[in-house]
């Protein structure tokens, strides 16, 4: 006689469907927030490095040729990646916020500016540039944009903290809500827990049934949420890459190995939260009886 055995826990019902949706949605949000935060963090790093690695040297009492010679001297210094005298067009662009789209009016004397891209500590390099120019008889002074860079650093530091804080908050919220929803779904199964308990099942046997059920549910739902987040991220990355004017200020979303790790870890974290909640809830329920 062939007798089919059904699982001791009933197949998924409406309450578990709701739990599936909650886990999937929270994993989706957590993954998306993590990817955006990571992109923001990366963008902030790059932008800070860019601002901190730039300085301007104002040269006076010389012509353009003298300025170009000074730029060559600066470029020869260790730590300097590039030094060049700004062209009139570059100056126009630089000063356009002050003079508007009409450009710099004729007759206004333009300064000779050397833009320096450097790596490392620009404060020490600025002193070295000043000394080199003085030694060469060029009247010039390096400006590290220190006040501006400090403001930028401060703003980006706040942005980083906000990004990390958002991810932590969302992750903790996701775990808490998943645990709460699991708890609620489990309470609806208390009748089954009681019957199994009174039939002589050990606590571990009962806990395992529920842990396995909610672990698998969490994994499936988390995977669904992560895949949805992956799809949304891919669309954003594709849109950003195909945009004609990509902005350095926008989060640098990508899909590298770290992002894929985040996508893989998120469902596991969600499933783990559900599993732990199941274990705790079943344990409490059983301990409340003899």
């Amino acid at each position: 006689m062939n007798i089919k055995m059904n699982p001791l826990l009933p197949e998924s019902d409406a309450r578990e469907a709701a739990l599936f949706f909650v886990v999937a949605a929270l994993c989706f949000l957590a993954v998306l927030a993590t990817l955006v935060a990571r992109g923001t963090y990366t963008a902030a790093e790059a932008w800070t490095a860019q601002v901190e690695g730039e300085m301007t040297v104002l040269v006076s009492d010389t012509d353009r040729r003298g300025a170009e010679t000074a730029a060559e001297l600066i470029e020869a210094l260790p730590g300097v990646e590039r030094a060049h005298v700004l062209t009139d067009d570059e100056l126009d662009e630089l000063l356009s916020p002050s003079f508007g789209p009409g450009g710099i009016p004729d007759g206004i004397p333009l300064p000779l500016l050397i833009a320096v891209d450097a790596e490392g500590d620009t404060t020490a390099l600025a002193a070295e540039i000043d000394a080199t120019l003085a030694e060469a008889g060029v009247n010039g002074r390096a400006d590290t944009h220190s006040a501006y860079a400090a403001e930028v650093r401060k703003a980006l530091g706040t942005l980083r903290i906000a990004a990390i804080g958002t991810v932590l908050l969302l992750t903790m919220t996701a775990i808490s809500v998943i645990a709460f929803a699991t708890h609620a779904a489990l309470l609806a199964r208390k009748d089954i827990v009681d019957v199994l308990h009174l039939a002589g099942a050990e606590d571990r046997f009962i806990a395992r049934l529920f842990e396995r059920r909610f672990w698998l549910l969490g994994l499936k739902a988390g995977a669904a949420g992560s895949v949805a987040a992956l799809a949304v991220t891919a669309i954003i990355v594709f849109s950003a890459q195909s945009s004609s004017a990509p902005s350095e200020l926008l989060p640098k979303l990508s899909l590298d190995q770290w992002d894929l790790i985040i996508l893989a870890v998120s469902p596991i974290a969600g499933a783990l939260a559900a599993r732990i909640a199941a274990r705790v809830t079943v344990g409490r329920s059983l301990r409340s009886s003899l």
Partner: protein
Amino acid sequence: MTQAGAPLATEPAVELNGVSLRYDTADDILTDIDIRLKPGTFNFLTGPSGAGKSSLLKLLYLAHAPTSGEVRLFGQRTADMSRNQLSALRRRIGVVFQDFRLLDHLTAFENVALPLRVSGEKPEDYRDEVVDLVRWVGLGERIHAFPPALSGGEQQRLAIARALINKPDILIADEPTGNVDPDMARRIFRLFIELNRRLNTTVIIATHDMHIIREFKAPVLKLQDGLLFADTAYEQA
């Protein structure tokens, strides 16, 4: 202390000493109950609704711990036992619940097999035994049916089969014939008596049915307002 296993012949199967039970801050449901039931005795528990019969049975099938006093089963003090030992002890107790407590998502076969399944036995080892018992309670044709598809009487017989499948040392039944016709009620009681005689099972049945009590002439534990006031210490040879 004896190990969880065969009871010593001289020890009562069930012993309650000064047991009281109270839920939360309410008054005592049971007050200072003393019971000693030797192995292999057949007992009725009776009393009006609200007297505490179901609460007393819950203490016996280890659903609750007493508020005070001690419960001993097979000579072992339940308060001293680990949770796993208590689970092992529950497997020696068959219970027919008043509300049946069948699992709706399991078939009749699976509901009856539940106590064997949770103790880790394999389906091929208990299949024939379960099928025979399901047939015996008259549900052979409904072995694949789920409880919601069964009548009240059929569900009750299924609950009885589940309580008996482990050949329990103690059988506890809370109004086990409430939903069956008189013929089936007698048949069920004869089964209980057969189990009691052949396997030396200690049987405790809560019932209002005075006809059955008179017909089967077993000792009666009477509860009223949480007090056990008569027949408190039957000593059967």
